[in-house]
Protein backbone atom coordinates (compact mmCIF):
# COMPACT_ATOMS: atom_id res chain seq x y z
CA UNK A 1 0.00 0.00 0.00
CA UNK A 2 2.75 2.40 -0.79
CA UNK A 3 1.05 4.16 -3.71
CA UNK A 4 -2.68 4.77 -3.67
CA UNK A 5 -4.40 4.61 -7.06
CA UNK A 6 -4.88 7.99 -8.63
CA UNK A 7 -8.63 8.70 -8.40
CA UNK A 8 -8.54 11.03 -11.42
CA UNK A 9 -6.94 8.37 -13.59
CA UNK A 10 -9.45 5.82 -12.34
CA UNK A 11 -12.27 8.18 -13.23
CA UNK A 12 -10.93 8.78 -16.70
CA UNK A 13 -10.64 5.04 -17.15
CA UNK A 14 -14.23 4.56 -16.00
CA UNK A 15 -15.43 7.33 -18.31
CA UNK A 16 -13.65 5.68 -21.21
CA UNK A 17 -15.34 2.37 -20.46
CA UNK A 18 -18.76 3.98 -20.17
CA UNK A 19 -18.20 5.81 -23.47
CA UNK A 20 -17.12 2.62 -25.22
CA UNK A 21 -20.14 0.76 -23.86
CA UNK A 22 -22.47 3.55 -24.97
CA UNK A 23 -20.95 3.57 -28.47
CA UNK A 24 -21.28 -0.20 -28.74
CA UNK A 25 -24.89 -0.05 -27.55
CA UNK A 26 -25.72 2.67 -30.10
CA UNK A 27 -24.17 0.66 -32.93
CA UNK A 28 -25.95 -2.55 -31.98
CA UNK A 29 -29.30 -0.94 -31.20
CA UNK A 30 -30.84 -1.00 -34.71
CA UNK A 31 -30.19 -4.73 -34.94
CA UNK A 32 -31.83 -5.46 -31.62
CA UNK A 33 -34.70 -3.05 -31.84
CA UNK A 34 -35.92 -3.01 -35.40
CA UNK A 35 -38.94 -0.83 -34.64
CA UNK A 36 -38.89 2.17 -36.99
CA UNK A 37 -40.47 4.51 -34.48
CA UNK A 38 -37.92 3.78 -31.78
CA UNK A 39 -35.11 4.41 -34.25
CA UNK A 40 -36.80 7.66 -35.28
CA UNK A 41 -36.98 8.77 -31.64
CA UNK A 42 -33.30 7.93 -31.19
CA UNK A 43 -32.50 9.98 -34.29
CA UNK A 44 -34.42 12.90 -32.83
CA UNK A 45 -32.53 12.50 -29.56
CA UNK A 46 -29.21 12.52 -31.44
CA UNK A 47 -30.25 15.66 -33.32
CA UNK A 48 -31.43 17.40 -30.16
CA UNK A 49 -28.24 16.45 -28.37
CA UNK A 50 -26.21 18.25 -31.05
CA UNK A 51 -28.02 21.54 -30.41
CA UNK A 52 -27.82 20.92 -26.68
CA UNK A 53 -24.05 20.40 -26.87
CA UNK A 54 -23.77 23.69 -28.72
CA UNK A 55 -25.63 25.46 -25.94
CA UNK A 56 -23.54 23.58 -23.40
CA UNK A 57 -20.43 25.12 -24.93
CA UNK A 58 -22.09 28.51 -24.77
CA UNK A 59 -23.61 28.26 -21.29
CA UNK A 60 -21.55 25.63 -19.55
CA UNK A 61 -18.14 26.72 -20.82
CA UNK A 62 -18.36 30.41 -21.60
CA UNK A 63 -21.25 31.16 -19.24
CA UNK A 64 -23.44 32.88 -21.82
CA UNK A 65 -27.16 32.28 -21.41
CA UNK A 66 -28.84 32.06 -24.80
CA UNK A 67 -32.54 31.36 -25.06
CA UNK A 68 -32.57 31.72 -28.82
CA UNK A 69 -30.83 28.59 -30.10
CA UNK A 70 -34.00 27.54 -31.93
CA UNK A 71 -33.34 30.43 -34.32
CA UNK A 72 -30.10 28.89 -35.59
CA UNK A 73 -31.67 25.46 -35.56
CA UNK A 74 -34.50 26.79 -37.74
CA UNK A 75 -32.13 28.64 -40.05
CA UNK A 76 -30.16 25.43 -40.54
CA UNK A 77 -33.26 23.37 -41.20
CA UNK A 78 -34.71 25.72 -43.79
CA UNK A 79 -31.33 26.35 -45.44
CA UNK A 80 -30.79 22.66 -45.90
CA UNK A 81 -34.32 22.15 -47.20
CA UNK A 82 -33.88 25.00 -49.68
CA UNK A 83 -30.44 23.88 -50.83
CA UNK A 84 -31.59 20.35 -51.56
CA UNK A 85 -34.96 21.14 -53.16
CA UNK A 86 -34.28 24.41 -55.00
CA UNK A 87 -30.61 23.99 -55.90
CA UNK A 88 -30.50 20.22 -55.90
CA UNK A 89 -27.35 20.08 -53.80
CA UNK A 90 -26.41 16.69 -52.35
CA UNK A 91 -27.11 16.11 -48.66
CA UNK A 92 -23.55 16.38 -47.28
CA UNK A 93 -23.08 19.78 -48.92
CA UNK A 94 -26.48 20.95 -47.70
CA UNK A 95 -25.56 19.81 -44.19
CA UNK A 96 -22.38 21.84 -44.28
CA UNK A 97 -24.16 24.75 -45.91
CA UNK A 98 -26.79 24.76 -43.17
CA UNK A 99 -24.11 24.97 -40.52
CA UNK A 100 -22.31 27.76 -42.37
CA UNK A 101 -25.43 29.84 -42.99
CA UNK A 102 -26.43 29.50 -39.32
CA UNK A 103 -22.94 30.55 -38.27
CA UNK A 104 -23.04 33.55 -40.62
CA UNK A 105 -26.46 34.51 -39.22
CA UNK A 106 -24.97 34.37 -35.75
CA UNK A 107 -22.30 36.84 -36.85
CA UNK A 108 -25.13 39.36 -37.09
CA UNK A 109 -25.67 38.79 -33.40
CA UNK A 110 -22.04 38.92 -32.38
CA UNK A 111 -22.29 42.50 -31.05
CA UNK A 112 -24.70 41.28 -28.39
CA UNK A 113 -22.12 38.97 -26.85
CA UNK A 114 -20.96 42.10 -25.04
CA UNK A 115 -24.15 41.81 -23.01
CA UNK A 116 -24.28 39.58 -19.97
CA UNK A 117 -26.78 37.52 -18.04
CA UNK A 118 -30.43 38.31 -18.46
CA UNK A 119 -29.76 41.03 -21.04
CA UNK A 120 -28.04 38.56 -23.34
CA UNK A 121 -30.90 36.14 -22.76
CA UNK A 122 -33.47 38.73 -23.79
CA UNK A 123 -31.51 39.75 -26.87
CA UNK A 124 -31.19 36.14 -28.08
CA UNK A 125 -34.86 35.66 -27.33
CA UNK A 126 -35.65 38.68 -29.46
CA UNK A 127 -33.54 37.33 -32.31
CA UNK A 128 -35.30 33.97 -32.20
CA UNK A 129 -38.70 35.66 -32.34
CA UNK A 130 -37.59 37.65 -35.39
CA UNK A 131 -36.38 34.49 -37.14
CA UNK A 132 -39.63 32.70 -36.29
CA UNK A 133 -41.66 35.54 -37.79
CA UNK A 134 -39.56 35.54 -40.95
CA UNK A 135 -40.07 31.79 -41.33
CA UNK A 136 -43.79 32.17 -40.75
CA UNK A 137 -44.39 35.15 -43.02
CA UNK A 138 -42.08 34.73 -46.01
CA UNK A 139 -44.21 32.18 -47.78
CA UNK A 140 -42.34 32.42 -51.09
CA UNK A 141 -39.20 31.17 -49.36
CA UNK A 142 -40.26 28.91 -46.52
CA UNK A 143 -43.82 27.91 -47.31
CA UNK A 144 -45.06 29.98 -44.35
CA UNK A 145 -47.60 28.41 -42.04
CA UNK A 146 -48.34 25.68 -44.58
CA UNK A 147 -44.91 24.32 -43.91
CA UNK A 148 -42.07 23.21 -46.14
CA UNK A 149 -43.02 19.93 -47.75
CA UNK A 150 -41.34 17.18 -49.79
CA UNK A 151 -37.83 17.54 -48.44
CA UNK A 152 -35.76 14.65 -49.82
CA UNK A 153 -34.33 11.98 -47.56
CA UNK A 154 -30.70 12.21 -46.62
CA UNK A 155 -28.47 10.63 -49.24
CA UNK A 156 -24.79 9.80 -49.13
CA UNK A 157 -22.86 9.61 -52.42
CA UNK A 158 -25.99 9.01 -54.45
CA UNK A 159 -27.27 6.35 -52.08
CA UNK A 160 -30.62 7.38 -50.59
CA UNK A 161 -30.93 6.41 -46.95
CA UNK A 162 -34.42 5.00 -47.20
CA UNK A 163 -34.25 2.71 -44.21
CA UNK A 164 -34.60 4.55 -40.87
CA UNK A 165 -31.64 2.50 -39.73
CA UNK A 166 -29.28 4.30 -42.10
CA UNK A 167 -30.54 7.76 -41.21
CA UNK A 168 -30.19 6.69 -37.59
CA UNK A 169 -26.52 5.97 -38.19
CA UNK A 170 -26.05 9.31 -39.95
CA UNK A 171 -27.70 11.28 -37.13
CA UNK A 172 -25.94 9.43 -34.36
CA UNK A 173 -22.68 9.61 -36.30
CA UNK A 174 -22.83 13.39 -36.67
CA UNK A 175 -23.73 13.68 -32.98
CA UNK A 176 -20.72 11.54 -32.10
CA UNK A 177 -18.41 13.67 -34.25
CA UNK A 178 -19.71 16.83 -32.60
CA UNK A 179 -19.26 15.25 -29.16
CA UNK A 180 -15.67 14.21 -29.85
CA UNK A 181 -14.83 17.61 -31.33
CA UNK A 182 -16.27 19.37 -28.31
CA UNK A 183 -14.35 17.13 -25.93
CA UNK A 184 -11.18 18.17 -27.78
CA UNK A 185 -12.23 21.82 -27.67
CA UNK A 186 -12.83 21.66 -23.93
CA UNK A 187 -9.35 20.34 -23.31
CA UNK A 188 -7.67 22.73 -25.71
CA UNK A 189 -6.10 26.11 -25.04
CA UNK A 190 -9.28 27.70 -26.39
CA UNK A 191 -11.46 25.65 -24.04
CA UNK A 192 -9.40 26.56 -21.02
CA UNK A 193 -9.44 30.23 -21.98
CA UNK A 194 -13.21 30.13 -22.32
CA UNK A 195 -13.54 28.46 -18.92
CA UNK A 196 -11.42 31.19 -17.42
CA UNK A 197 -13.79 33.77 -18.87
CA UNK A 198 -16.78 32.08 -17.29
CA UNK A 199 -15.08 31.97 -13.91
CA UNK A 200 -14.02 35.60 -13.94
CA UNK A 201 -14.16 37.78 -17.06
CA UNK A 202 -12.11 40.57 -15.53
CA UNK A 203 -9.32 38.30 -14.40
CA UNK A 204 -9.31 36.62 -17.80
CA UNK A 205 -9.04 39.99 -19.50
CA UNK A 206 -6.21 40.94 -17.18
CA UNK A 207 -4.41 37.77 -18.24
CA UNK A 208 -4.46 38.98 -21.81
CA UNK A 209 -7.38 36.91 -23.09
CA UNK A 210 -9.51 38.59 -25.72
CA UNK A 211 -12.76 38.08 -23.86
CA UNK A 212 -15.23 39.47 -26.36
CA UNK A 213 -13.62 37.65 -29.27
CA UNK A 214 -13.58 34.32 -27.44
CA UNK A 215 -17.20 34.71 -26.36
CA UNK A 216 -18.22 35.51 -29.92
CA UNK A 217 -16.37 32.45 -31.17
CA UNK A 218 -18.36 30.27 -28.77
CA UNK A 219 -21.52 31.90 -30.00
CA UNK A 220 -20.65 31.16 -33.64
CA UNK A 221 -19.64 27.57 -32.91
CA UNK A 222 -22.88 26.94 -31.05
CA UNK A 223 -24.83 28.41 -33.97
CA UNK A 224 -22.89 26.27 -36.44
CA UNK A 225 -23.74 23.01 -34.70
CA UNK A 226 -27.34 24.15 -34.23
CA UNK A 227 -27.44 24.64 -38.00
CA UNK A 228 -26.07 21.13 -38.55
CA UNK A 229 -28.74 19.73 -36.26
CA UNK A 230 -31.41 21.69 -38.10
CA UNK A 231 -30.29 20.19 -41.39
CA UNK A 232 -30.39 16.66 -39.96
CA UNK A 233 -33.85 17.36 -38.58
CA UNK A 234 -35.11 18.61 -41.93
CA UNK A 235 -34.04 15.41 -43.69
CA UNK A 236 -35.17 13.15 -40.88
CA UNK A 237 -38.69 14.53 -40.56
CA UNK A 238 -38.92 15.82 -44.18
CA UNK A 239 -41.55 18.40 -43.28
CA UNK A 240 -40.84 21.73 -41.62
CA UNK A 241 -43.40 23.99 -40.00
CA UNK A 242 -42.71 27.34 -38.33
CA UNK A 243 -44.10 25.98 -35.07
CA UNK A 244 -41.12 23.65 -34.80
CA UNK A 245 -38.91 26.68 -34.25
CA UNK A 246 -40.77 28.81 -31.76
CA UNK A 247 -39.42 30.14 -28.55
CA UNK A 248 -40.53 26.90 -26.86
CA UNK A 249 -37.88 25.07 -28.84
CA UNK A 250 -35.20 27.34 -27.41
CA UNK A 251 -36.55 26.72 -23.93
CA UNK A 252 -36.54 22.98 -24.57
CA UNK A 253 -32.89 23.17 -25.58
CA UNK A 254 -32.09 25.10 -22.43
CA UNK A 255 -33.94 22.52 -20.34
CA UNK A 256 -31.85 19.77 -21.93
CA UNK A 257 -28.65 21.49 -20.87
CA UNK A 258 -29.74 22.31 -17.33
CA UNK A 259 -31.47 19.00 -16.62
CA UNK A 260 -28.38 17.19 -17.90
CA UNK A 261 -26.05 19.33 -15.84
CA UNK A 262 -24.53 22.65 -16.82
CA UNK A 263 -20.94 22.18 -17.94
CA UNK A 264 -21.16 18.51 -18.85
CA UNK A 265 -21.23 17.44 -22.50
CA UNK A 266 -22.45 13.96 -21.68
CA UNK A 267 -25.07 15.66 -19.52
CA UNK A 268 -26.32 17.58 -22.55
CA UNK A 269 -26.85 14.28 -24.37
CA UNK A 270 -28.61 12.76 -21.36
CA UNK A 271 -30.77 15.86 -21.11
CA UNK A 272 -31.68 15.64 -24.79
CA UNK A 273 -32.65 12.02 -24.29
CA UNK A 274 -34.89 12.95 -21.38
CA UNK A 275 -36.52 15.98 -23.00
CA UNK A 276 -37.17 14.25 -26.33
CA UNK A 277 -37.71 10.74 -25.03
CA UNK A 278 -39.74 11.31 -21.89
CA UNK A 279 -42.83 12.85 -23.54
CA UNK A 280 -42.83 9.94 -26.01
CA UNK A 281 -42.49 7.53 -23.13
CA UNK A 282 -45.34 9.24 -21.26
CA UNK A 283 -47.63 9.22 -24.30
CA UNK A 284 -49.80 6.65 -22.54
CA UNK A 285 -51.08 9.16 -20.00
CA UNK A 286 -52.33 11.54 -22.69
CA UNK A 287 -53.21 15.02 -21.50
CA UNK A 288 -51.30 14.64 -18.30
CA UNK A 289 -47.92 14.03 -19.88
CA UNK A 290 -46.73 17.61 -20.03
CA UNK A 291 -48.03 18.12 -16.49
CA UNK A 292 -45.88 15.22 -15.35
CA UNK A 293 -42.98 16.54 -17.43
CA UNK A 294 -43.16 19.91 -15.68
CA UNK A 295 -43.29 18.23 -12.30
CA UNK A 296 -40.29 16.04 -13.15
CA UNK A 297 -38.39 19.11 -14.30
CA UNK A 298 -39.02 20.89 -10.99
CA UNK A 299 -38.20 17.75 -9.02
CA UNK A 300 -34.90 17.34 -10.87
CA UNK A 301 -33.98 20.89 -9.98
CA UNK A 302 -34.97 20.28 -6.36
CA UNK A 303 -33.21 17.01 -5.82
CA UNK A 304 -30.34 16.97 -8.26
CA UNK A 305 -28.17 20.04 -8.24
CA UNK A 306 -25.72 19.15 -10.95
CA UNK A 307 -28.39 17.63 -13.14
CA UNK A 308 -28.47 14.10 -14.48
CA UNK A 309 -24.73 14.06 -15.12
CA UNK A 310 -24.02 14.61 -11.43
CA UNK A 311 -26.65 12.09 -10.38
CA UNK A 312 -25.12 9.50 -12.70
CA UNK A 313 -21.61 10.25 -11.44
CA UNK A 314 -22.72 9.88 -7.83
CA UNK A 315 -24.54 6.66 -8.62
CA UNK A 316 -21.52 5.38 -10.52
CA UNK A 317 -19.19 6.22 -7.64
CA UNK A 318 -21.49 4.54 -5.13
CA UNK A 319 -21.75 1.51 -7.38
CA UNK A 320 -17.98 1.49 -7.87
CA UNK A 321 -17.48 1.73 -4.12
CA UNK A 322 -19.90 -1.11 -3.60
CA UNK A 323 -18.13 -3.27 -6.16
CA UNK A 324 -14.70 -2.70 -4.66
CA UNK A 325 -16.05 -3.37 -1.20
CA UNK A 326 -17.77 -6.57 -2.25
CA UNK A 327 -14.99 -8.06 -4.34
CA UNK A 328 -12.61 -10.03 -2.17
CA UNK A 329 -9.14 -8.48 -2.42
CA UNK A 330 -6.24 -10.81 -2.88
CA UNK A 331 -3.40 -9.19 -0.98
CA UNK A 332 -1.68 -6.42 -2.91
CA UNK A 333 -3.21 -6.73 -6.36
CA UNK A 334 -5.27 -3.57 -6.52
CA UNK A 335 -3.09 -1.09 -4.77
CA UNK A 336 0.43 -1.93 -5.78
CA UNK A 337 -0.05 -2.21 -9.54
CA UNK A 338 0.50 1.50 -9.91
Amino acid at each position, binding site marked *: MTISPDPAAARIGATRWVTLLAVAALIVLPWLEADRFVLHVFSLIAIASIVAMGLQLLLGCSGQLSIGQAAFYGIGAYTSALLTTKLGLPFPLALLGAGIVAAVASLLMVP*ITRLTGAYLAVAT*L*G*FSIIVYLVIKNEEWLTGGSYGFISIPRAALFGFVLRDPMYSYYVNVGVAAIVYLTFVRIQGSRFGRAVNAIREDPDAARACGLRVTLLKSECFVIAAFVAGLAGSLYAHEVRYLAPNDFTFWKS*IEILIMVVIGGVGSLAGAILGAAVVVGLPEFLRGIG*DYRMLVF*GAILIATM*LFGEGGLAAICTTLGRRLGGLVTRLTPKPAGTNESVQ
Partner: protein
Amino acid sequence: MGSLGASQFVDLLVGGIAVGCVYSLVALGFAMIMRATSIIHFAQGELMMLGAMCGLTSLWLLPVLPLILVVAVGMVSSGIIAVMMELFVYRTLRRRRVPIMNIITATVGMSILCINAARIIWGSEPLRFPELFATTAYEFGGVRISPQLFWIMVMAVAIMGGLQLFLKLTRSGIAMQAVAQDPEAAQLMGANLTRMMAYTFAISGMMAGAAGIMLGSMFFAFFEMGFITGLKAFVAATLGGLGSIAGAMLGGILFGLIETFSTVFLSSAYKDAIGMILLIAILLVLPSGLVGLWQRRR
Protein backbone atom coordinates in the same frame (compact mmCIF):
# COMPACT_ATOMS: atom_id res chain seq x y z
CA MET B 1 -49.14 58.04 -43.54
CA GLY B 2 -51.12 61.24 -43.52
CA SER B 3 -54.46 59.54 -43.98
CA LEU B 4 -54.73 58.94 -40.27
CA GLY B 5 -57.23 61.27 -38.60
CA ALA B 6 -56.78 62.73 -35.16
CA SER B 7 -59.47 60.51 -33.65
CA GLN B 8 -57.92 57.37 -35.06
CA PHE B 9 -54.61 58.50 -33.66
CA VAL B 10 -56.16 58.93 -30.23
CA ASP B 11 -57.77 55.49 -30.51
CA LEU B 12 -54.42 53.94 -31.25
CA LEU B 13 -52.76 55.89 -28.49
CA VAL B 14 -55.35 54.79 -25.94
CA GLY B 15 -55.29 51.20 -27.12
CA GLY B 16 -51.52 51.14 -26.99
CA ILE B 17 -51.40 52.59 -23.51
CA ALA B 18 -54.06 50.14 -22.27
CA VAL B 19 -52.17 47.13 -23.62
CA GLY B 20 -49.00 48.73 -22.30
CA CYS B 21 -50.55 48.94 -18.82
CA VAL B 22 -51.10 45.18 -18.91
CA TYR B 23 -47.47 44.64 -19.90
CA SER B 24 -46.39 47.06 -17.19
CA LEU B 25 -48.21 45.14 -14.49
CA VAL B 26 -46.67 41.84 -15.54
CA ALA B 27 -43.27 43.48 -16.05
CA LEU B 28 -43.45 44.90 -12.54
CA GLY B 29 -43.65 41.37 -11.19
CA PHE B 30 -40.61 40.40 -13.28
CA ALA B 31 -38.70 43.42 -12.02
CA MET B 32 -39.55 42.86 -8.36
CA ILE B 33 -38.60 39.20 -8.43
CA MET B 34 -35.46 39.96 -10.44
CA ARG B 35 -34.44 42.60 -7.93
CA ALA B 36 -35.03 40.44 -4.88
CA THR B 37 -33.70 37.10 -6.12
CA SER B 38 -32.04 37.83 -9.49
CA ILE B 39 -34.03 35.04 -11.13
CA ILE B 40 -35.96 35.43 -14.37
CA HIS B 41 -39.38 34.22 -13.33
CA PHE B 42 -40.68 32.51 -16.46
CA ALA B 43 -43.96 31.53 -14.80
CA GLN B 44 -44.96 35.19 -14.46
CA GLY B 45 -47.13 35.05 -17.60
CA GLU B 46 -48.79 31.92 -16.28
CA LEU B 47 -49.66 33.72 -13.05
CA MET B 48 -51.41 36.24 -15.25
CA MET B 49 -53.27 33.51 -17.11
CA LEU B 50 -54.34 31.82 -13.87
CA GLY B 51 -55.60 35.15 -12.56
CA ALA B 52 -57.74 35.57 -15.66
CA MET B 53 -59.07 32.03 -15.36
CA CYS B 54 -59.89 32.35 -11.67
CA GLY B 55 -61.59 35.70 -12.23
CA LEU B 56 -63.63 34.21 -15.04
CA THR B 57 -64.62 31.25 -12.89
CA SER B 58 -65.80 33.58 -10.15
CA LEU B 59 -67.94 35.32 -12.77
CA TRP B 60 -69.45 32.02 -13.85
CA LEU B 61 -70.33 31.21 -10.27
CA LEU B 62 -71.64 34.68 -9.43
CA PRO B 63 -72.58 36.52 -12.62
CA VAL B 64 -73.52 39.71 -10.73
CA LEU B 65 -70.00 40.24 -9.41
CA PRO B 66 -68.88 43.84 -10.05
CA LEU B 67 -65.70 44.50 -11.97
CA ILE B 68 -63.70 45.56 -8.96
CA LEU B 69 -64.42 42.28 -7.18
CA VAL B 70 -63.51 40.23 -10.26
CA VAL B 71 -60.15 42.00 -10.36
CA ALA B 72 -59.78 41.35 -6.63
CA VAL B 73 -60.47 37.64 -7.11
CA GLY B 74 -57.90 37.50 -9.91
CA MET B 75 -55.32 39.31 -7.82
CA VAL B 76 -55.84 37.23 -4.70
CA SER B 77 -55.79 33.89 -6.49
CA SER B 78 -52.65 34.72 -8.48
CA GLY B 79 -51.04 36.09 -5.35
CA ILE B 80 -51.73 32.89 -3.43
CA ILE B 81 -50.41 30.74 -6.27
CA ALA B 82 -47.26 32.84 -6.49
CA VAL B 83 -46.64 32.54 -2.76
CA MET B 84 -47.11 28.79 -2.97
CA MET B 85 -44.54 28.59 -5.77
CA GLU B 86 -42.11 30.55 -3.64
CA LEU B 87 -42.71 28.60 -0.43
CA PHE B 88 -42.68 25.12 -1.89
CA VAL B 89 -40.09 25.39 -4.63
CA TYR B 90 -38.02 28.54 -5.02
CA ARG B 91 -37.29 28.99 -1.32
CA THR B 92 -36.08 25.42 -1.04
CA LEU B 93 -33.91 25.88 -4.10
CA ARG B 94 -32.38 29.08 -2.73
CA ARG B 95 -31.69 27.45 0.64
CA ARG B 96 -29.78 24.71 -1.10
CA ARG B 97 -27.75 27.35 -2.89
CA VAL B 98 -28.22 25.71 -6.26
CA PRO B 99 -26.88 27.61 -9.28
CA ILE B 100 -29.14 30.36 -10.54
CA MET B 101 -29.67 28.52 -13.86
CA ASN B 102 -31.34 25.66 -12.00
CA ILE B 103 -33.81 28.01 -10.32
CA ILE B 104 -34.60 29.63 -13.65
CA THR B 105 -35.19 26.19 -15.16
CA ALA B 106 -37.46 25.36 -12.24
CA THR B 107 -39.51 28.45 -13.08
CA VAL B 108 -39.80 27.12 -16.64
CA GLY B 109 -40.99 23.83 -15.19
CA MET B 110 -43.50 25.75 -13.11
CA SER B 111 -44.72 27.47 -16.24
CA ILE B 112 -45.18 24.14 -18.07
CA LEU B 113 -47.00 22.80 -15.01
CA CYS B 114 -49.38 25.78 -14.86
CA ILE B 115 -50.13 25.80 -18.59
CA ASN B 116 -51.01 22.13 -18.64
CA ALA B 117 -52.95 22.21 -15.39
CA ALA B 118 -54.98 25.10 -16.80
CA ARG B 119 -55.61 23.19 -20.01
CA ILE B 120 -56.91 20.23 -18.06
CA ILE B 121 -59.08 22.36 -15.76
CA TRP B 122 -60.44 24.98 -18.17
CA GLY B 123 -60.08 23.24 -21.53
CA SER B 124 -58.19 24.48 -24.56
CA GLU B 125 -60.90 26.66 -26.09
CA PRO B 126 -60.53 30.43 -25.82
CA LEU B 127 -63.03 31.66 -23.23
CA ARG B 128 -64.81 34.95 -23.64
CA PHE B 129 -65.39 37.22 -20.67
CA PRO B 130 -68.92 38.50 -20.16
CA GLU B 131 -69.39 42.23 -20.72
CA LEU B 132 -67.76 43.87 -17.73
CA PHE B 133 -67.81 47.46 -18.90
CA ALA B 134 -70.34 49.99 -20.13
CA THR B 135 -70.65 49.92 -23.91
CA THR B 136 -71.27 53.58 -24.72
CA ALA B 137 -68.08 55.52 -25.23
CA TYR B 138 -67.02 58.22 -22.79
CA GLU B 139 -66.34 61.66 -24.20
CA PHE B 140 -63.55 63.83 -22.94
CA GLY B 141 -63.58 67.20 -24.70
CA GLY B 142 -64.62 65.73 -28.03
CA VAL B 143 -62.37 62.67 -27.77
CA ARG B 144 -64.22 59.37 -27.47
CA ILE B 145 -62.66 56.65 -25.36
CA SER B 146 -64.03 53.15 -24.89
CA PRO B 147 -64.98 52.58 -21.24
CA GLN B 148 -63.10 49.31 -21.20
CA LEU B 149 -59.78 50.87 -22.11
CA PHE B 150 -60.48 53.82 -19.83
CA TRP B 151 -61.10 51.66 -16.78
CA ILE B 152 -58.16 49.41 -17.56
CA MET B 153 -55.90 52.44 -17.53
CA VAL B 154 -57.47 53.82 -14.36
CA MET B 155 -57.13 50.49 -12.56
CA ALA B 156 -53.58 49.95 -13.72
CA VAL B 157 -52.53 53.41 -12.62
CA ALA B 158 -54.30 52.93 -9.27
CA ILE B 159 -52.63 49.56 -8.68
CA MET B 160 -49.17 50.80 -9.64
CA GLY B 161 -49.66 53.93 -7.52
CA GLY B 162 -50.77 51.77 -4.61
CA LEU B 163 -47.66 49.65 -4.99
CA GLN B 164 -45.44 52.72 -4.97
CA LEU B 165 -47.12 54.00 -1.80
CA PHE B 166 -46.74 50.58 -0.18
CA LEU B 167 -43.05 50.43 -1.03
CA LYS B 168 -42.34 53.99 0.07
CA LEU B 169 -44.52 54.42 3.15
CA THR B 170 -45.03 51.12 4.96
CA ARG B 171 -42.46 49.32 7.09
CA SER B 172 -42.91 46.12 5.12
CA GLY B 173 -42.47 47.97 1.84
CA ILE B 174 -39.26 49.60 2.99
CA ALA B 175 -38.01 46.28 4.38
CA MET B 176 -38.73 44.65 1.01
CA GLN B 177 -36.66 47.26 -0.78
CA ALA B 178 -33.87 46.79 1.72
CA VAL B 179 -33.91 43.01 1.30
CA ALA B 180 -33.74 43.45 -2.45
CA GLN B 181 -30.70 45.70 -2.16
CA ASP B 182 -28.69 43.77 0.40
CA PRO B 183 -30.29 40.70 1.97
CA GLU B 184 -27.66 40.21 4.65
CA ALA B 185 -27.55 43.77 5.87
CA ALA B 186 -31.36 43.92 5.84
CA GLN B 187 -31.53 40.76 7.88
CA LEU B 188 -29.11 42.23 10.42
CA MET B 189 -31.43 45.23 10.70
CA GLY B 190 -34.25 42.91 11.64
CA ALA B 191 -36.02 42.34 8.33
CA ASN B 192 -37.51 38.87 8.03
CA LEU B 193 -36.00 37.57 4.80
CA THR B 194 -38.39 34.65 4.33
CA ARG B 195 -41.44 36.79 4.88
CA MET B 196 -40.19 39.57 2.61
CA MET B 197 -39.52 37.11 -0.22
CA ALA B 198 -43.04 35.75 0.21
CA TYR B 199 -44.37 39.32 0.07
CA THR B 200 -42.39 39.96 -3.10
CA PHE B 201 -43.94 36.97 -4.79
CA ALA B 202 -47.39 37.79 -3.43
CA ILE B 203 -47.24 41.29 -4.88
CA SER B 204 -45.83 40.06 -8.20
CA GLY B 205 -48.61 37.52 -8.41
CA MET B 206 -51.26 40.10 -7.60
CA MET B 207 -50.02 42.46 -10.29
CA ALA B 208 -50.06 39.61 -12.78
CA GLY B 209 -53.55 38.55 -11.72
CA ALA B 210 -54.92 42.04 -12.27
CA ALA B 211 -53.23 42.13 -15.67
CA GLY B 212 -54.85 38.81 -16.50
CA ILE B 213 -58.36 40.10 -15.87
CA MET B 214 -57.65 43.17 -18.00
CA LEU B 215 -56.14 41.28 -20.92
CA GLY B 216 -58.76 38.55 -20.72
CA SER B 217 -61.57 41.08 -20.91
CA MET B 218 -59.90 42.81 -23.88
CA PHE B 219 -59.40 39.60 -25.87
CA PHE B 220 -59.96 36.08 -24.59
CA ALA B 221 -58.82 33.95 -21.71
CA PHE B 222 -57.12 30.73 -22.71
CA PHE B 223 -54.45 28.47 -21.34
CA GLU B 224 -51.63 29.73 -23.54
CA MET B 225 -52.32 33.44 -23.16
CA GLY B 226 -49.72 33.86 -20.46
CA PHE B 227 -46.75 32.61 -22.35
CA ILE B 228 -46.35 35.15 -25.12
CA THR B 229 -47.59 38.01 -22.94
CA GLY B 230 -45.12 36.98 -20.28
CA LEU B 231 -42.32 37.09 -22.83
CA LYS B 232 -43.33 40.53 -24.02
CA ALA B 233 -43.54 41.77 -20.45
CA PHE B 234 -40.08 40.36 -19.80
CA VAL B 235 -38.81 42.23 -22.84
CA ALA B 236 -40.59 45.35 -21.56
CA ALA B 237 -38.95 44.97 -18.15
CA THR B 238 -35.56 44.72 -19.86
CA LEU B 239 -36.32 47.67 -22.05
CA GLY B 240 -36.92 49.75 -18.96
CA GLY B 241 -33.88 48.42 -17.17
CA LEU B 242 -34.03 45.08 -15.39
CA GLY B 243 -34.86 45.18 -11.74
CA SER B 244 -36.06 48.76 -11.78
CA ILE B 245 -39.68 49.29 -10.83
CA ALA B 246 -40.10 52.63 -12.59
CA GLY B 247 -38.31 51.13 -15.58
CA ALA B 248 -40.73 48.23 -15.76
CA MET B 249 -43.77 50.53 -15.77
CA LEU B 250 -42.24 52.80 -18.40
CA GLY B 251 -40.99 49.88 -20.49
CA GLY B 252 -44.39 48.20 -20.46
CA ILE B 253 -46.28 51.23 -21.67
CA LEU B 254 -43.63 52.01 -24.26
CA PHE B 255 -43.73 48.44 -25.54
CA GLY B 256 -47.52 48.55 -25.80
CA LEU B 257 -47.32 51.77 -27.80
CA ILE B 258 -44.57 50.50 -30.10
CA GLU B 259 -46.50 47.32 -30.76
CA THR B 260 -49.77 49.09 -31.52
CA PHE B 261 -48.29 51.75 -33.75
CA SER B 262 -46.01 49.44 -35.68
CA THR B 263 -48.98 47.18 -36.42
CA VAL B 264 -50.67 50.08 -38.16
CA PHE B 265 -47.78 51.91 -39.75
CA LEU B 266 -45.37 49.14 -40.64
CA SER B 267 -46.65 45.60 -40.79
CA SER B 268 -49.05 43.56 -38.71
CA ALA B 269 -47.25 40.31 -39.51
CA TYR B 270 -43.99 41.68 -38.14
CA LYS B 271 -45.37 43.65 -35.21
CA ASP B 272 -43.54 41.51 -32.67
CA ALA B 273 -40.34 41.63 -34.69
CA ILE B 274 -40.26 45.42 -34.65
CA GLY B 275 -40.40 45.47 -30.88
CA MET B 276 -37.57 42.94 -30.75
CA ILE B 277 -35.36 44.82 -33.21
CA LEU B 278 -35.85 47.93 -31.17
CA LEU B 279 -35.05 45.98 -28.04
CA ILE B 280 -31.78 44.64 -29.43
CA ALA B 281 -30.85 48.10 -30.67
CA ILE B 282 -31.57 49.67 -27.30
CA LEU B 283 -29.61 47.00 -25.47
CA LEU B 284 -26.63 47.57 -27.74
CA VAL B 285 -26.61 51.31 -27.14
CA LEU B 286 -27.78 51.26 -23.53
CA PRO B 287 -26.94 47.95 -21.91
CA SER B 288 -28.80 48.90 -18.74
CA GLY B 289 -32.08 49.95 -20.30
CA LEU B 290 -33.87 53.27 -20.37
CA VAL B 291 -33.50 53.84 -16.64
CA GLY B 292 -29.75 53.57 -17.09
CA LEU B 293 -29.90 56.51 -19.48
CA TRP B 294 -31.85 58.56 -16.99
CA GLN B 295 -29.48 57.71 -14.17
CA ARG B 296 -26.48 58.60 -16.28
CA ARG B 297 -27.96 62.01 -17.07
CA ARG B 298 -28.39 62.85 -13.43
